[in-house]
């Protein structure tokens, strides 16, 4: 029952917290504070929440604010609308299990608009407390713990570890397919084929998990790539799990987010009516960055109605997603429009966040590639960078002596000496003999500059020490 991997992941985080405590207590270290870019947590790194989101949420929490002249009219009206949808007019009530119906409907409208008018049905949408929870629930439907051979799920390498944990906790097996680092972490169908072959006799693969835009690898799939994956899923009869949390984070020139749903629909029969797809999104990433509010949704396409019934029962076992989070979902999918009083500020804030991200992505790419033994492809999308470390045999040896993975060793030293908290590549998966680190690039520009300065300085010292 005890998942050893979970325990290992925690060690670096615990140390980071310890150091943060020590700094608070006045202990002297080579740095004044820890730059925490381990998770995709915008606010932690200093990015600001969207004003209109927080104004509406505040008014929903404390309804007398609806009459306050300090809030723009559209904020007040919207808050009233949202409260009107809550049972008892309060964010403190339980909601319907699949989510507040009007918000579910609003999400379906958003998806339809995003995908050029392709219909989206509210009955196929479930709101949950964060996307990971709905990924877990859908996996639960697909995975038979008792099956022999065991159920398999294809996952990208690298991949953020939460989904990997969900898969193993349910008693299934991960079937890794390697993204091509040389091609900017592109997903290649031949590699999907190889991965599937490798599963023969080992497990029974039923699903294919894709992350687009990637995490931690910052690629954005082209439409052609999405089509290839869909075709592959159709041929091999795999359930497609499309994690699209970073759909708002696209920076590469000539890059565009194209949803799996839209592509599937536009491919027409036989694909459009048969490939089973679950698409995930949440309020945690993108411009909102509201990880702490806990809300996401899943849209299901082409599922057997009998299977949908069971999914409904499964989701009914949980309590509803937090109401404030559901409201944030609504605000994300239905933001201010030109002409609304809140629109100018909203536009300004979104553009500012975008500008910061685009700038950071460029700077990070520049700095990292200028350092010896450090490289990364251009970051096209997502909120992370996953640069490659060319560690010397001496460094690798030292890590072994300490009983650590080489990149964990690097990250531990970087934390202790440089005050920057990043994630070691092995936690996300990587080709044997390669090493990486992951960190979030969503931080105010000055924080990012400081980070790059500390990282560069540390890196040069480290490479020298172990040359």
């Amino acid at each position: 029952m005890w998942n050893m991997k979970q325990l290992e992941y925690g060690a670096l985080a615990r140390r980071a917290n310890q150091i943060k405590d020590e700094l608070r207590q006045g202990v002297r270290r080579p740095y004044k504070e820890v730059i925490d870019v381990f998770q995709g947590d915008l606010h932690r790194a200093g990015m600001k929440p969207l004003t209109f989101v927080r104004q509406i949420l505040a008014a929903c929490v404390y309804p007398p604010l609806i009459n306050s002249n300090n809030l723009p009219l559209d904020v007040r009206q919207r808050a009233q609308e949202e409260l009107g949808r809550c049972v008892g007019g309060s964010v403190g009530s339980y909601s319907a299990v699949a989510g507040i119906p009007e918000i579910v409907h609003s999400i379906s409208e958003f998806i339809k608009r995003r995908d050029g008018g392709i219909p989206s049905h509210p009955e196929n949408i479930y709101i949950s407390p964060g996307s990971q929870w709905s990924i877990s629930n859908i996996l639960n439907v697909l995975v038979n713990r008792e099956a022999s051979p065991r159920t398999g799920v294809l996952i990208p390498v690298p991949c953020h570890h939460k989904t990997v944990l969900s898969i193993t906790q349910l008693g299934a097996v991960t079937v890794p397919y390697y993204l091509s680092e040389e091609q900017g972490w592109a997903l290649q169908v031949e590699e999907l084929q190889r991965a599937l072959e490798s599963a023969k006799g080992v497990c029974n693969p039923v699903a294919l998990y894709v992350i687009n835009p990637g995490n931690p690898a910052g690629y954005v799939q082209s439409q052609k790539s999405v089509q290839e994956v869909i075709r592959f899923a159709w041929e091999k009869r795999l359930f497609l799990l499309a994690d699209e949390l970073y759909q708002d984070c696209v920076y590469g020139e000539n890059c565009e987010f194209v949803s799996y749903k839209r592509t599937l629909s536009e491919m027409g029969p036989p694909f459009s009516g048969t490939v089973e797809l679950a698409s995930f999104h949440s309020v945690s990433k993108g411009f909102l960055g509201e990880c702490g509010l806990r809300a996401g949704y899943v849209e299901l396409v082409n599922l057997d109605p009998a299977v949908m019934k069971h999914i409904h029962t499964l989701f009914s076992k949980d309590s509803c997603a937090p109401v404030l989070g559901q409201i944030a979902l609504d605000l994300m999918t239905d933001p201010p429009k030109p002409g609304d009083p809140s629109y100018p500020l909203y536009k300004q804030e979104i553009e500012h966040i975008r500008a910061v991200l685009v700038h950071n992505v460029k700077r990070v790419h520049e700095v990292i590639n200028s350092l010896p033994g450090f490289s990364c492809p251009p970051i096209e999308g997502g909120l992370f960078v996953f640069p490659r470390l060319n560690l010397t045999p001496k460094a690798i040896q030292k890590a072994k002596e300490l009983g650590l993975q080489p990149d964990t060793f690097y990250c531990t030293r970087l934390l202790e000496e440089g005050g920057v908290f990043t994630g070691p590549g092995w936690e996300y998966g990587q080709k044997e003999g390669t090493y990486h680190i992951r960190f979030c690039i969503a931080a105010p520009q000055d924080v990012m500059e400081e980070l790059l300065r500390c990282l560069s300085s540390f890196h040069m010292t480290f490479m020298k020490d172990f040359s």
Partner: protein
Amino acid sequence: MKMTSLQHVNPTVRGMRDSPQTMLQNLAERIRKDISLGAQKPFKKVIDVSSGDPHRADLQHVSFLRQVLAVCVYPQLLEDKCYPLDVKIRAQKLLEACDGASVGSYTASSGLRHVRQSIAEFIQRRDGVPSYAQNIFISAGSQRAIMIAVKLLASGEGNTRTGVLIPAPCPHMLYNVLEEAGVVLVPYQLTEEKGWAVDLDKLHQALKAAQGNCEPRAIYISNPGNPTGHVQDRKSIEEVIQFAAAERLLLLADEVYQDSVYGKDREFISYKKVLFEMDRELAETVQLISFHSISSTCIGECGLRAGYMEVVNMDPEVIYYFDNTLCGDISTPVTGQLALDLMVNPPQPGDPSYDTYIQETFFTLATLSHNAQLVQELINKLPGVKCQPTLGGIYVFPRLHLPCGIKEQAKLLGLKADVLYCQKLLEEEGVLAGAGEHGEMTDSFHLRLCILVPHDTLVEVLARLASFHCRLMDGTVTPTEV
């Protein structure tokens, strides 16, 4: 042709059935939808008294809590003159405890340290017994905490599977929770004639019945009782503790309604306090986990999703795993965590918000007490209905002696008679009540009514219930179509 057909679905998921409660909720949803589309019904709207959701029922929230949360969500409000000083000070303190000073950041999976500390201090004040933040784990509601605690305990297969003693009747959500944790349920009957008191003999009987079927490792109890309304006195709590100690069972004490005791001469005493006031050996060995949440009586913030558990006398190595397991579970929303802090650390005498706070909580408790009284007066007058006096909690759980007609109809439809009763009550009068859960003996039927609602709402509910019930007893209720 669909790829994943029913036969490919995980057998465990396929085997899940909608509980009677879910079925009734779904029906209520359909009826609400019909009404909103203009359908004519004998009632204007559905009144849901099947579960505790005070805000749904239009009971007021606690102003102080909502004001502080609003400021935390939108800190610009700190510049607004209309908020009392204590609201601003508290909001600032809480924001400092959040990473990035935002409710939008992730927190550690066991919860914000500041809030865990507040909870520890609250428990210490309440019980006069030391309490430590590292033994407190915040979760997205008390049910998740119970699920995690039990999951950590669960092991074995077949007849060595872990068993958990649960009261009959028990909270209706408990079945889902324990099913998810993968344990065997070992029901112990509460004594209805004694106001649903705990009976030591019944505890022993339950253990005996479990022999050879599973390995009981824990006992769950709710005090104040959900849905019974019983409040244990010290002696009763001591008996349960001694039983748990003798049988080496982990005690799971669900104390979510601790602030809802209205019975005369009865007060809430926590399991922890009683344990520490018993002899030293017991106090140092009995393993206890106590649960609480913001879905409680006076706070009622079910939609914000947060609760906590305090772990006592647990091996430090095991405690380590609590945090890890929480990593894999639903994260607690930050706003819920802050609400927890506000619940355990309310305004004090002298604070600007104190008077309003006291008024609001007093009003809630008075409503509850008044409602309990009204129920006793009216419901026992209905033929075939007997309701035990309640001392606390937010439910009443009257017993129904039903006529053969409805019992037979229920059999034909494959339902328990009280579930059918609730279905008809919903369809004909628009009142959604809870049916007594399937843990009980099959020939006794009960209704679960939440009485934490505005007084007028209860009056309306009782009127509709009485009307329906009398028709049923007179044999004039329309048979349900098969």
